[in-house]
């Protein structure tokens, strides 16, 4: 009973943070801010939802698998975002600033 309610709350929170990531990916002005939205919000949303699955699922090995998936997402998602940000910086893409006249859409 309590376990299911906690799992539901976690899953709904995870969906909320995934929505924040999607909105940030569409609305923010340049590559670096979009990477910021995608890496942090989406990682938290994924972690909360997979934790909900780990609480709900009945088999013990399945819980272990869900925990491994959680750990793996926690390690790889920020690493991938970091690598992409480094690649963008190496190619000389300038970060967007407030006095950018074109709003950074073609940064």
């Amino acid at each position, binding site marked *: 009973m309590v376990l299911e309610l906690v799992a539901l709350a976690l899953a709904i929170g995870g969906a909320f943070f995934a929505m924040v990531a999607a909105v940030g990916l569409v609305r923010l002005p340049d590559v670096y801010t979009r990477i910021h939205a995608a890496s942090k919000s989406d990682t938290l949303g994924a972690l909360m939802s997979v934790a909900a699955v780990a609480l709900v699922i009945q088999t013990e090995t399945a819980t272990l698998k869900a925990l491994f998936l959680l750990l793996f*997402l926690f390690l790889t998602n920020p690493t991938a975002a970091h690598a992409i940000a480094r690649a*963008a910086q190496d*190619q000389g893409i300038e970060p967007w600033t407030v006095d950018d006249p074109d709003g950074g859409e073609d940064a």
Partner: protein
Amino acid sequence: MVDVAQPLLALAGAFVVFAIVAMYRVVTGPTLHDRVIAVNVVGTNTVVAISLAAGAFEEPVFLDIALVYALLNFLLSIAISKFSVEHGGVL
């Protein structure tokens, strides 16, 4: 006993919707890195949707598929970011 299967399936649908929203950034770019990070978000949302379906249907096998998909997603992002730089020195 709270029935948790239907809400988990609905939330999996919500994750699919957010992946479709992220596809907007894959299509419009403008840089390669925008597309890569958006594809990464689409992949992560797919992994979460698969694992939510595993929780809803009580199918532990789905979690194996989600693990493999997460690995491939990570490999794609690292490979593209590495080979888009001249000497491959990103990490």
